[in-house]
């Protein structure tokens, strides 16, 4: 008889050690990005060649600030999940695998922070 609970046995098992969480989050962020990225790319068209004041005024609108923040978080999360799988598939040298995974996490975290801080700085009128 095992002393482990059913929940304990189910949680964290499988080759990924995290069940279907990665798969699910990759799809969830993908669906979010379909909407957010299409909105961003089409809206960006009206800002081509626009002066700084116009860009600042655009970002400063509350709905634009919120959508840009959501886009940044979904984007860098999706990026981390995707690059992680590519590295898992092609890098087989243990130390290189770990180094690459840390580098991807660092890049995704810093990228998301740069985006969030920049958006907020513009939004609160400090640019």
């Amino acid at each position: 008889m095992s002393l482990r609970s059913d929940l304990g046995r189910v949680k964290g098992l499988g080759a990924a050690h995290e069940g279907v969480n990665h798969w699910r989050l990759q799809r969830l962020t993908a669906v979010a990005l379909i909407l957010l990225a299409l909105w961003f790319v089409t809206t960006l068209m009206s800002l081509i060649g626009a002066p700084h004041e116009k860009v600042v005024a655009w970002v400063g609108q509350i709905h634009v600030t919120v959508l840009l923040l959501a886009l940044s978080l979904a984007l860098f999360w999706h990026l981390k999940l995707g690059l992680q799988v590519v590295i898992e598939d092609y890098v087989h040298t243990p130390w290189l695998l770990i180094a690459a995974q840390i580098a991807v996490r660092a890049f995704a975290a810093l990228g998301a922070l740069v985006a969030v801080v920049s958006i907020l700085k513009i939004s609160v009128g400090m640019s």
Partner: protein
Amino acid sequence: MSRSKPLSPHLQVYRPQITSVLSITHRATGIALSAGTVVLLYWLASAAGGSDAYAAAQGVFSHGLVKLLLVGWTWAFFYHLCNGLRHLAWDAGYGFKISTVYRSGYTVIVASLVLTGLIWACVLAKLGGA
């Protein structure tokens, strides 16, 4: 570790097919777009930095070579978007018939090229008018 076991598939002697080529292109565009986020961050950070920094960034973006890179990233974006929709349909259990897989594959190629053309026609019209 023993290396005598047969490895499969031998990609070097495997005829490229639309299924495998589109699959690896999805990964390649994902990697390219990841690198491209640096451009997005530069644009955002320069806008946050003030009008001088933003004007400098606009100078960089108007450079011919940078524009060429941006065209490449636009195509990578639309390819990853269209093929991503194809993957989501598969995840939901649709489109597995081999004729459907081929048809959706060619649709992705055409759609990504058309959308890239549309966006850049719009960009060039705007820049020409400015």
